[in-house]
C-alpha cells in the first residue's frame, strides 16, 4: 500500500512537471509549424527586385595554400583568407537551434554606421522581420568601433534570441564575436566579411561576395576592353581604390587584378591608389584621374572604381576634360548616380549591391536557424553585373 501510494505520488509529481513541459513543447511546435508556413520569397525591395534572391555563384572552394601571404598579389590564392573566409571554420561553442520557430523571436540588429545605404539595409531587414513577427531592434554606432563595442555589451545584457552584426572592422570582429559567443547568445554576422577567426564564434555570415562580384565584373570588363582594343598586346588599366581598412579596399582592386592575371594576361595594371585624404570626394578623384591621364596618356584604356557615385562622377569629369571616351570604366554599384551613368552609356558596368537584400538575407538566415533549417556557414548575395542592357529594371534606386 505504502509503496503504491509512493508510486502514485511519483507519477503525479512527474505529471506535474512533465505536462507543462509537454504543453510548452506543443506550443513551441505550433509556433514552429506556423513559422515554417511563412513565405518570404515573394517580398520585393524598393527597386522591384526579389528581396531574397539566392546566390548564383557556384564556384568551388579551392584548397587553402600553406601560406597565402607568400604567393604574389596577382595570385588569386594570395587573398584566400579574405576571399574564402568562412569555409574552414572551427566552430567554438556554437549554440544549437532551439527549433521553436522564428515567430516572436527577439533579434538585435547592429549595423556599422549611418549612411543612406544603411537606411535601406535596415528597411529590408525590417520587411523580413515583420513577415516573421519578430521583435526587431536596429542600432547604429555611427562608424565608431568604441560605440559598437558598447552596443554589443548592451545587446548581450538584453539577452535577445540572436544578435545580427555588421562588424565595423574585419579583424576587430574576432574579439566582438568571441565576446558574444562567451555570453552564449547566437550571433550572425553579415555584410562585412570578417576575419576567418571571427566565424569560429558565429552561426554564419551572409552578404555580398566582394571578391566574387569583382571577379565577375573583371571578366565582363576584360571582354569589353578586348573588343575595343582588338589584338592589343598590352592594355593598361588603373584602379581607384576604396578607403583603406577593410576587405573592399582589397577586393575591389586586387580581386580584378588577380583575376585578370589569369583571365586576360594582356591587361596590365598601371596604377592602383585610393584618393586621399577624401576617398569618396568627386573632386579629389577627378584630380587623381586627371593626373593619371597625363602620366599614362593613351596607354590607359580602362578604370575600375570602388564606388559608382562620387568616384565615378569624378572619373568621368576627368575623362571629359581630356576628351577621352575610349576608356572603359566599371565600378562597384549600385547607386542612383551610377545607374544614371550606365544608362547614359558612360559607365560600362556596375555590380548589383542590394542594400535591402543584404539586411533581409541576414534576418532570413536568423529565421531559418530558429526554424531548425540546416544552413551553410556562408551565404552570398546574388551576383549580377548591371549594364546598359538591363539597367532600366533596377529603377527606382534603393537609396
Amino acid at each position, binding site marked *: 500500500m505504502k509503496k503504491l501510494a509512493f508510486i502514485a505520488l511519483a507519477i503525479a509529481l512527474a505529471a506535474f512537471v512533465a505536462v507543462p513541459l509537454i504543453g510548452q513543447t506543443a506550443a513551441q511546435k505550433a509556433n514552429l509549424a506556423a513559422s515554417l508556413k511563412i513565405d518570404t520569397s515573394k517580398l520585393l525591395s524598393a527597386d522591384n527586385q526579389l528581396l531574397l534572391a539566392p546566390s548564383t555563384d557556384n564556384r568551388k572552394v579551392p584548397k587553402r595554400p600553406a601560406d597565402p601571404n607568400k604567393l604574389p598579389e596577382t595570385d588569386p590564392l594570395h587573398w584566400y583568407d579574405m576571399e574564402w573566409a568562412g569555409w574552414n571554420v572551427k566552430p567554438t561553442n556554437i549554440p544549437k537551434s532551439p527549433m521553436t520557430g522564428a515567430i516572436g523571436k527577439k533579434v538585435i540588429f547592429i549595423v556599422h554606421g549611418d549612411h543612406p545605404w544603411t*537606411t535601406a539595409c535596415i528597411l529590408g531587414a525590417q520587411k523580413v522581420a515583420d513577415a516573421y513577427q519578430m521583435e526587431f531592434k536596429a542600432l547604429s554606432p555611427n562608424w565608431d568601433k568604441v560605440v559598437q563595442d558598447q552596443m554589443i555589451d548592451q545587446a548581450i545584457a538584453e539577452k535577445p534570441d540572436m544578435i545580427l552584426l555588421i562588424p565595423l572592422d574585419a579583424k576587430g570582429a574576432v574579439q566582438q564575436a568571441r565576446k558574444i559567443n562567451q555570453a552564449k547568445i547566437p550571433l550572425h554576422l553579415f555584410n562585412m566579411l570578417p576575419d576567418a577567426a571571427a566565424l569560429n564564434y558565429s552561426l554564419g555570415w551572409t552578404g555580398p561576395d566582394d571578391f566574387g562580384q569583382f571577379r565577375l565584373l573583371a571578366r565582363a570588363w576584360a571582354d569589353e576592353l578586348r573588343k575595343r582594343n582588338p589584338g592589343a598586346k598590352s592594355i593598361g588599366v588603373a584602379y581607384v581604390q576604396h578607403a583603406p581598412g577593410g576587405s573592399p579596399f582589397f577586393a575591389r582592386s586586387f580581386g580584378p587584378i588577380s583575376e585578370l592575371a589569369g583571365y586576360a594576361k594582356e591587361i596590365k595594371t598601371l596604377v592602383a591608389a585610393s584618393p586621399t585624404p577624401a576617398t569618396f570626394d568627386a573632386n579629389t578623384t577627378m*584630380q*587623381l584621374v586627371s593626373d593619371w591621364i*597625363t*602620366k599614362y596618356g593613351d596607354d590607359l584604356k580602362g578604370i575600375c572604381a570602388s564606388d559608382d557615385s562620387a568616384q565615378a562622377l569624378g572619373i568621368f569629369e576627368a575623362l571629359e576634360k581630356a576628351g577621352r571616351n575610349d576608356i572603359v570604366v566599371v565600378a562597384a554599384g549600385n547607386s542612383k548616380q551610377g545607374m544614371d551613368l550606365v544608362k547614359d552609356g558612360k559607365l560600362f558596368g556596375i555590380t548589383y549591391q542590394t542594400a535591402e537584400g543584404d539586411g533581409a538575407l541576414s534576418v532570413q538566415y536568423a529565421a531559418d536557424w530558429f526554424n531548425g533549417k540546416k544552413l551553410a556557414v556562408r551565404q552570398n548575395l546574388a551576383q549580377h553585373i548591371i549594364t546598359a542592357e538591363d539597367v532600366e529594371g533596377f529603377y527606382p534606386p534603393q*537609396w
Partner: protein
Amino acid sequence: MSDNRGPAPDGATDGAATAQADTRSVKTGSLSSLVNTAGVYGIALLFLVLGAVLQFTGAIGNFLSPQNLLNIVDAVALVGIVAVGMSFVTYSGNYADMSVPTTMGLTGYICIELLRYGFIPAIIGAIGVSLLIGVLNGFVVGKFKANPIIWTLAVNYVTMGIIRLVWVNKQIYPDMKGSSPDVVALFDAIYRLRFFKLIGLPLVILILLVVIGQFVLTKTSFGVKLKLTGSAPKAAKLSGIPIETVIMTSFVLAAFTAAIAGLAVTSLSRVGAWYNGAGYDFKAVTAIVIGGMTLAGGRGTILGVLGGSLIIGILNNIMTLIGIGTFSQDMVRGAIFILVVGINAKSLRSLGRDDA
C-alpha cells in the same frame, strides 16, 4: 643668477629693454604684403621649376602641357573658393570657420529642394540660408568674442543634426524632386559648364572671387577696418571701428563662398548629402596658411591664398606624376605644410614683422 628658462618668447623683454621704442612695425604696409605674396608665388614657382626639371630629365612627362596645368587649377578650384571666403575670417583674427562642411552640405539640400521653383530662386534660397549660418557665427563671435573654432564646430554639429533630422538620414537627388528637366540640367551644369570647352565655371568663379576679394581687402574702407580688427582688435575698437560688424561680415563672406562651393560639389556629385563638404574645412585652412596668411590675423593677401591653393595642387600633381602612392603623398603634404609655414613665420619674424 643662472638663467635656465631658455630664450624669451616674443614680446617678453627684461626691464630696461621695454624703455626702447618699438620700431618693429614701422616699415610694414604694402611692402610687407608684397614680400609675403611674392614668397608664396616664389614657392609655387619653385615647384613649377621642379616639375619642369623633372620633365626635362624624363622622370615625368607632360608636366608643362597646357592640359596638365589646367588640371592643376581645376583641381584646386573648389578648395580655393572656400579658402577665399574663409581667409576673411582668418584675416579678422578668428582662425577658421569649422562650420564650412555642413554649410556646404546644407546648401546642396536646400537648393535641390527649391529647384522645383526654378533655378534662380533655388540658388538664391540656398545661398540665403547659408548666409544665415554666417550671420549667426559672426554675431556670436563678433559680439561676445566666443572662441571661433569651438563655436563654429558646435554650429557644425547642430546643423548636421538638423539636416539629418529634417531629411531623415536620406540623401536627395536633383532629378527626383519633381523639378523640370531643364532646371535639373542647369543645376548639373554649375560644375560642368566650360567656357571655350576649356575653362570650367568653378575656375571662373574662383578668379572672380580672388580679384574681388583682393580689391575689398586692399582698396576699400572695409579692408582697412578688417586689417585693424585682425591685427589689433582693441585698438580697432577704441578708434571707433565697429568690430562686431566687421567680424560678422567676414563670417558671412566665409559662408557665402562655402555656399558656392557647396552648390558646385552637389552639382558635381549629383546628390544632396550631409557628408558633401567633409574635409573642406581643413583643406581650406591649409591653403590659407600656406598662402601666407597668419592665424594671428591682419596679415596676408587673397592673392596669397590663391597661391597657397596652387602650391597644394602642383605638389599633388607632381607626386602623382612621379608615381608616389597616395599614402606617401599624405606624409609629404604634411611635412611640406609645416615647412612652408614655418619658413614663412620665421622670415616674418626675422624681419621683425610678426610674432605669430
